[in-house]
């Protein structure tokens, strides 16, 4: 466990008169929101006429058209990694299945055809409809087989069955780095 620092707010300070009558604070609040409105509106209008387009009126990113790019630590949909010889890394140890807090991983293991490799996942199924993206399975994997940096986050389907990813599907989609940004790039773009 890392250290969690809790910022303590000193509530023992008696409120000033202005704070107690409340009205002044309300007005201050209204002033802030009003200022945001006016400033943003100003830039919206300027942008509308193609002026000062670098300064946007809103921080919103128009998601499907505009991709924000992902921080390298972002957990995206799982995939099962392969070794250099293209065999699945997964050895079917069921650690991820055990640690999964959402109980969304289902593994059935069997003997590996190669006698020097003992175990292999026969069925490896993740129910994305249940997954909570906690990343415990990645953390716990002793073989670095299950990873959550596929770069696929748009998981949607019309049926629940489609949300269930079987081993073939998990194996075929690999790490796609195109949308990933490292920390420095990220901080530059989204300070």
């Amino acid at each position: 466990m890392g250290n969690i620092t809790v910022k303590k707010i000193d509530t023992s300070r008696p409120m000033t008169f202005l704070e107690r009558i409340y009205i002044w604070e309300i007005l201050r609040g209204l002033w802030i929101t009003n200022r945001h409105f006016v400033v943003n509106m100003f830039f919206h209008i300027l942008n509308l006429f193609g002026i000062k387009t670098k300064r946007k009126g809103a921080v919103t990113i128009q998601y499907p058209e505009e991709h924000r790019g992902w921080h390298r630590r972002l957990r995206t949909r799982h995939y099962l990694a392969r070794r250099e010889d293209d065999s699945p890394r997964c050895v079917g140890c069921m650690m991820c299945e055990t640690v999964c807090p959402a109980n969304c991983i289902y593994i059935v293991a069997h003997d590996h055809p190669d006698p020097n490799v003992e175990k292999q996942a026969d069925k490896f199924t993740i129910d994305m409809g249940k997954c909570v993206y906690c990343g415990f399975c990645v953390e716990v994997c002793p073989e670095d087989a299950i990873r959550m940096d596929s770069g696929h986050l748009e998981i949607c389907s019309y049926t629940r069955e489609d949300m269930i990813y079987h081993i073939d599907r998990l194996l075929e989609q690999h790490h796609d780095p195109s949308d990933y940004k490292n920390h420095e790039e990220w901080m530059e773009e989204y300070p």
Partner: protein
Amino acid sequence: MSGKEKKTVKTVIDGKEYAFPQGTTILEAAKSVGIEIPHFCYHPGLSIAGACRMCLVEIEKMPKLQISCHMTVDDGMVIHTNNERVKKARKAMLEFHLVNHPLDCPVCDQGGECNLQIYYMMHGNYISRLRENKVKKTKKAFQIGPHVMLDQERCVLCSRCVRFCQEISKSNELGIFQRGDREEIDVFPDMQLNSPYSANVVDICPVGALLDKDFRFKTRAWYLESADSICPRCSRGCNIEIHYNLNRPWKNEGRRLARLKPRCNLEVNDWWVCDEGRYSFKFIDDDNRIEGPLVRTDGKARNTGFKEALELAAESLRNSAASTDVEIAVLVSPRAANEELYLLKHVFSEQLPGTRLVFSSATPFEPTEDDILRKKDKNSNTRGAELMGLTPDSAQVWSLSELKDAVLAGEIGALYICYHDITGLPEEFSAGWAEALERIPLVVYQGTNTCPTSEKAQIIFPAAAFAEREGTVTNFEGRVQIQQKVFEPLSEALPGWQIIQSLGVALGGSYEYESAEEVFADLAKNEPAFAGLSYEKIGSGGFVAKDAKA
């Protein structure tokens, strides 16, 4: 342990003084007062090897640390099992054990119940400083017998399995080859680990070197829950633990029961169980289980629900009883629990007086026997039936051949079969029965699995298997032991005593037992052989019935 009174000695362990019988090893003595000393090679049922050196303890006035599995307590001994020196030594020993251990815990079936893991977490917990290559053994995992897989790399060479084969099964298949860190366990050339007790080496292996082929990769140890039971496979009544998994149905090919493990009972089976018994559980989750009460009309069986089937059975039985030409016979099974036998005896004699009881202890199994555990009688409860007077020794009870004669003479109008698969028995018992069954107007079958006999029955009641119901069985020496209910019966199946009770009610009697325990209470009251027994008294170790010795 001879019955001779042993001198007690006063010994100080970790600052407290205790009294132990002389000759107790320090390890056992510490265990008896709740101090667990880690060990690999020591097993109470085997000779002392002293090889693993995990159980080192410090004894004052002795310069070296001593192994507690070999050293016996003595008067005035001051033992430290947990001081810094001992802890350091333990840590060192663990480090040595792990030098050439492959650390493939994730794929190792022992993971989760592995002593090496447990001790590492409890006593080791260091960061490895090994920078050398581990010594590779020639083969990874390979099969050394019908039930056992061997992985030499995981072996810590505690030699428990070797000693088991030398001392308990006396089959001597395993040996230790090579020496130094190249040393490995293996079967002797041209041999297989195929003694009838081979799978016990899996239980005693403290690490994942010897693994059960049947259980391999099916599930993980920590998914399993455990319940105590009694092996149903022979009249020894070995104490077992049932390991089962209900929460992850995709594991173990959908079977609930994952494996059986022996449970220590020094009066019955020590620490062991035979392979026949160990793998006798498959029928419980088999595809051919009878899942609901069936009524066969015109050769077609349909599930009618218990109510209808019971009423039909009761009516048919009553009709048979009303007829003066024919008799009703009940084939009692020595594989049924005491409670079922008791109810069978009472329900039929009270509701259908004149019912003929038939008893046979024949089984389809090979009558193997040795002087370790296995008994020739492959029924779990023959002695219980004997104690209740249900054996053909008594005049009222027929044997199977007497029944066949009666059937062929057309004297039997209805036959109620409990658990017996008559047609599946060895030739000497089953001969002619396939035709004989056809000649009985009404055959009622109560059992767990579909079998040729049940195919011939008109009414079939699905009974719960031994792990699905509570009950007691009496082993060959008259020891009454409890089989716990481990999980719910498959689909509509009911415990045998409930089926018989319901049939009794359908026949017009009033039986209001709520549990098998209540049936047993009645049994203890009415059967002199079981007088004074109760579930509480039987406990987990079993209790020898009073008249059993007679």
